[in-house]
């Protein structure tokens, strides 16, 4: 047993014998490394939660939001990217989780990792694009708190990125930002400066005790200038938003209660602009800001001077910076809550800063561009590499100079007393004025914005200065105005400048005396006539100015209007027929102010009325205005200033009444027969059918009214009678509108006391009969005119009846005649007159019956006989009654 045991037992550590030339036996515990591995990335969850929409990583919005609290930057960035993806895929998520989304995203504005901040900004932009301002409104305090936290952060990177967040908000929610400007505006100050903690010693030195000083941070990866530029740029944007919010005043109060609520609205509006609601607040704000801006300016200009010889040439960077400084100053001026405080603020600015402004800004005015293309190129390349954040804003020197002018001119206060000795600002205003004048009169085309700024500058200078130099300025503007090919916007700008100036003249004698202004006014009518129908909007502007000047009785304008009136009121291509209705009305109203209305103009006007190019009501008001200007209206009893002499006026009325000029009538006489209805025994005159739209003469009523008020009616009728006899009785072809109009006028004007002449009656009876022959196609108005004329002039009726000679008629005309007669018989107003001519009537009817005896009795004859018998019967009945009593 033991042996076997021993045998069995082996040594623990057997000696392995290695032999040369043989491979080393493998150790028992050697690891086989002949396998390969592959990694499995679980970027998305395996479980699928069907309840909420997820990203492609199967993360829902809650997971993503919780990931934002992760310590790792990459996870946070991933979460932000995932959120963006989720929101693009499922916009409905945005509505549900807006509050948590915004609060979480805003929290990472101040993240240490720049990539996270960038993603956060991008996400914010995405959200801002899809959520309207009114829905963001409740979360805005939170957003702005985080924003100001980021803006005042100690790390420069975060500060810079905060500006980008601000950009997003400025783009999408300007109104919300403008509602809380005070906080942001102080933050801006923090960005470029620091509150000096220095003790009283420094304060004593500076005297004024300014508490803020420009800060320079050497760690920034942009230069101090560029940094300030970016900040100031945002600053200007914010300001503009605030400005806009203040400008959007509530709409004009309507009738009654609205006018009461108006002031309250205003109050609430301004109280939202917290901190900047009073002049004092603005003043305090300005007093911290302006010194800083001046410092920035000095730095920009000094750093350049060291490089170059000529101090007025600037690098683009410096120029952009200066430009922004000036725009901030300009905006600061406009920040007053109420317009009436503007003057107080201006005066304060002047007293505080005029000296410094003069010293700094005016030293090297005007500024130019440093013309070193090589250096600039390199610099551009460099700056674009270094600081992609700075927008490549290139400011032209012109823009800088113009803005400088505007800022400086706003310092000029109104000179109360006149006198050459009291021109305290002349020394520094001189170069400004020279520059403005030169720029305007150089003839170069200016962009709309520049021109706008320049015009504001000129306006201020003209209003405040009371010397002759303003005339030169106005001349320069006028040069600009006279340029060809200006676009509408610019043209309107210049036009409104002048018209505003003209409307202001009562305050300033020198403006009223300005030759340039009167030259401008005198040129307006010719411009209007040249403009024609090409630009109705501009014509409207011109007309407004012309009307204002005309109502003030400006002599130059009236003279020029008088010379060009015939062109303006030409019936074919004058402005009065080409422009839209509103301008037409203005042009017609303008006639009132003309000192004299010559014959030619009256002829044009009458043709305008009759040609039907403008509405009947306008034609009526034109006639009324001419009536007022004639001596016969008697409105202005005392004053003898009548524009129209009586003869012209009456002939004007008469030509409107006829509706056709003598030339047109004579061409009608000679025209071929195709357009004219031929004469027949039943219609002795051949009628010319007028087109329907020309036929609707509403204004002959107005003419009648004017004629009625001329004075004694009989004289007036004499005039009319003479006119008709002389001009119209010889006609063979008569337009039907004219015939109807004449009949109506005669019916209205004729008095019982007046005996119309034979020739007139003959002509009228011809007209009447011709019209009646058309009775089937006739309109109601013409029929009315005929009946009125026949009713008021009994002799006319008799004559018409006499003209009805049955023997001359042919077969087809007999029914027509019968129809006319029966209609006349049926008319109650005519009945008595018909009865007066009973014998004549009986004769006609006998003739008629005789002529148709051959055939069977037709319907028309039966009708006529019935009408006749009824009329006669009632007459006899009346007679019978009279006999009884």
């Amino acid at each position, binding site marked *: 047993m033991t042996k076997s045991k021993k045998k069995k037992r082996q040594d623990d550590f057997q000696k392995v014998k290695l032999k040369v030339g043989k491979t080393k036996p493998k150790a028992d515990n050697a690891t086989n490394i002949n396998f390969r591995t592959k990694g499995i990335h679980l970027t998305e969850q395996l479980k699928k939660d069907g309840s909420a929409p997820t990203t492609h990583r199967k993360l829902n919005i809650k997971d993503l939001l919780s990931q934002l609290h992760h310590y790792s930057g990459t996870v946070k960035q991933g979460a932000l990217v995932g959120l963006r993806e989720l929101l693009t895929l499922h916009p409905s998520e945005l509505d549900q989780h807006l509050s948590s989304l915004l609060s979480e995203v805003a929290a990472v504005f101040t993240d240490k990792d720049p990539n996270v901040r960038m993603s956060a900004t991008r996400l914010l932009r995405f959200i801002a694009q899809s959520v309207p301002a009114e829905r963001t409104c409740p979360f805005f305090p939170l957003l702005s708190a985080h924003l100001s936290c980021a803006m005042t952060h100690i790390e420069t990177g975060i500060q810079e990125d905060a500006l980008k967040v601000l950009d997003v908000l400025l783009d999408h929610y300007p109104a919300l930002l403008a509602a809380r400007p005070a906080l942001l505006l102080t933050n801006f100050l923090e960005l470029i400066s620091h509150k000096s903690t220095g003790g009283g010693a420094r304060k004593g030195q500076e005297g004024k005790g300014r508490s803020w000083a420009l800060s320079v941070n050497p760690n920034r990866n942009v230069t101090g200038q560029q940094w300030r530029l970016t900040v100031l740029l945002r600053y200007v944007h914010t300001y503009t938003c605030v400005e806009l919010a203040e400008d959007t005043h509530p709409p*004009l*109060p*309507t*009738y*009654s209660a609205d*006018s009461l609520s108006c002031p309250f609205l205003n109050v609430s509006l301004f109280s939202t602009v917290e901190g900047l609601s009073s002049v004092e607040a603005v003043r305090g704000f300005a007093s911290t800001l302006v010194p800083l801006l001046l410092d920035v300016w000095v730095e920009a200009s000094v750093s350049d001077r060291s490089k170059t010889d000529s101090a007025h040439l600037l690098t683009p960077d410096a120029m952009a910076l200066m430009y922004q400084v000036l725009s901030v100053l300009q905006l600061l001026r406009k920040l007053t809550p109420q317009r009436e405080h503007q003057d107080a603020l201006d005066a304060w600015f002047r007293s505080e800063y005029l000296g410094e402004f003069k010293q700094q800004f005016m030293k090297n005015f005007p500024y130019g561009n440093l013309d070193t293309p090589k250096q600039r190129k390199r610099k551009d390349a460099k700056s674009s590499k270094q600081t992609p954040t700075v927008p490549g804003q290139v400011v032209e020197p012109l823009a800088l100079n113009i803005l400088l002018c505007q800022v400086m001119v706003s310092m000029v206060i109104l000179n*109360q007393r006149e006198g050459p000795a009291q021109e305290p600002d002349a020394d520094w205003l001189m170069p400004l004025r020279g520059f403005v004048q030169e720029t305007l009169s150089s003839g170069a085309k200016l962009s709309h914005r520049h021109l706008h700024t320049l015009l504001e500058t000129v306006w201020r200078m003209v209003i405040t200065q009371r010397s002759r130099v303003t005339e030169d300025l106005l001349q320069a503007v006028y040069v600009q105005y006279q340029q060809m090919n200006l676009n509408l916007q610019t043209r309107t700008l210049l036009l409104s400048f002048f018209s505003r100036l003209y409307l202001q003249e*009562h305050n300033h004698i020198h403006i009223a005396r300005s030759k340039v202004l009167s030259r401008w006014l005198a040129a307006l009518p010719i411009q209007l006539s040249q403009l024609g129908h090409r630009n109705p909007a501009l014509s409207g502007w011109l007309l407004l100015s012309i*009307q204002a000047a005309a*109502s*003030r*009785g400006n002599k130059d304008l009236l003279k020029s209007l008088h010379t060009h009136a015939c062109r303006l009121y030409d019936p074919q291509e004058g402005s009065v027929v080409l422009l839209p209705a509103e301008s037409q009305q*203005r042009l017609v*109203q303008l006639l*009132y102010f003309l000192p004299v209305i010559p014959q030619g103009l009256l002829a044009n006007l009458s043709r305008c009325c009759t040609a039907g190019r403008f509405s009947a*009501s306008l034609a*009526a*008001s034109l006639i*009324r*205005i001419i009536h*007022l200007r004639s001596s016969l*209206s*008697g*409105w*202005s*009893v*005392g*004053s003898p200033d009548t524009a129209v002499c009586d003869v012209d006026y009456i002939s004007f009325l008469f030509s409107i009444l006829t509706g056709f000029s003598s030339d047109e009538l004579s061409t009608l006489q000679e025209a071929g027969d195709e357009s004219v209805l031929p004469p027949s025994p039943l219609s002795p005159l051949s009628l010319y059918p007028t087109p329907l739209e020309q036929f609707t003469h509403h204004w002959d009523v107005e003419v009648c*009214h004017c004629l*009625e*008020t001329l004075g004694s009616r009989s004289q007036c009728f004499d005039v009319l009678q003479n006119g008709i006899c002389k001009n119209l009785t010889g006609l063979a072809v008569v337009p039907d509108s004219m015939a109807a109009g004449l009949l109506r006028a005669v019916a209205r004007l004729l008095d019982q006391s007046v005996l119309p002449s034979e020739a007139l009656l003959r002509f009228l009876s011809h007209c009447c009969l011709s019209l009646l022959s058309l009775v089937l196609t006739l309109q109601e108005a013409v029929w009315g005119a005929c009946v009125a004329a026949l009713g008021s002039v009994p002799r006319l009726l008799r004559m018409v009846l006499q003209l009805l000679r049955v023997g001359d008629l042919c077969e087809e005309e007999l029914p027509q005649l019968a129809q006319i007669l029966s209609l006349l018989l049926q008319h109650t107003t005519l009945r008595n007159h018909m009865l007066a001519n009973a014998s004549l009537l009986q004769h006609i009817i006998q003739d008629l019956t005789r002529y148709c005896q051959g055939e069977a009795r037709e319907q028309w004859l039966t009708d006529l006989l019935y009408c006749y018998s009824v009329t006669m019967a009632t007459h006899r009945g009346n007679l019978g009654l009279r006999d009884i009593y």
Partner: protein
Amino acid sequence: MSAPMEIIVCADSAGQLWNCAVIELHSGTNLLSYRGGNSSPRALTVLNGEYILGAQLGKNFINVWEIQRKDQLQQKIVCPGVVTCLTSSPNGLYLVAGIAEAIYLWEVSTGNLLAILSRHYQDLTCLRFTDDSSHFISGGKDNLALVWSLASVVQLDSTNAPEPRHVLSRHSLPITDIHCGLMGPQARVATASLDQTVKLWELSSGEMLLSVLFDVGIMSVTLDPCEYYLFCGGSDGGIFQVSLCSQSLSRDKTFQSDNEGNQVFKGHRNLVTCLSVSMDGTLLLSGSHDETIRLWDIQSKQSIRSINQKGPVTNAFIIPAPANMFLPDSRPGIPLPRFSRHLNPSEQGEGVETGGVCVRLAPHTQVRPKETYLEKADKLYSLMSAVTDKSVFGSGENTKVRVSELEEEVRTLKKVNKDLYDFSAQLLTKPN
């Protein structure tokens, strides 16, 4: 005492029989007439109920009559130019005239020319005061109507010329007539113009409330006292009644006659130049260039009386009859002074009152200032409490006297009582 009598004062441009006539409103009888010359349109005014002033047509003077002395022309005020319109303030302190394009303002008590306002660019057509004389409105042929505050115009400030409070500049043709409603500075003002519109303005803000467009030019305008209706006289002889209570709230509207108050009074055949409504708002007076004055019943729109004149009517208005008018023996309270033609009388060598300031207050401002409501309440309270106080405690010296009286009485009563006691005790204790 009977109700105030209303009269019509009218004038025509012919002036054959009289310059202006006074007619009883309801009966139409001719009460008085004033002779001499004739009056320009909108240039006849009654000053303080004591004088009638009318600017002579086409001449540069103003005719003045004492209101009780009919027929006799009392005086002529010579002006620097032809007077186109004239009015006096309702409190009778100021006289305003439009002479060419300038407004002349006189103080009636001294005759001083206080101001010449030249803001209009063309001739004036109309001047109107508010009923409290605090503002006046001027309209001219330059399409403008200006609202002036009398106080700011009158105050002496040589540095800047007085500016109007509001410029109403929405008309596009000359203004023909202005009507100023009641309620002083809160009144509503209606302006009529040849541009065929009538516009209603708020005096306090200068805002336009309503613009009504018509078919014809409007020559005259008035409101009834309640401001329910606007009456507009057209240049074709129609009088248009516009209801201001309509539901539609559009600011610009076109006149169309309907059954709801917008209607036309037809009857005149020429320009309607004057309109006026009686105090109770039932009668409308209209004067026209067709040489008639008509009286209309507003409710039924009928012409109830037509009074023929000898020429185009230039002035016609209804006023309550002044007290002096029918008392031939009465005299005006103050004689009318000479009206000066130049702005500064001191410069003309008559500098008597240099340095002195002439202050004249209106009669109703001379009375003691009224107590406030608080003072009134205090007074009332003391009055009421005095009754109770006096009944319980009496007051002041009365108390002392009374106390001493009462003490005296007590003393006598005690004495009587003691006597009675003594007597009875004596009686009882007396041994029988």
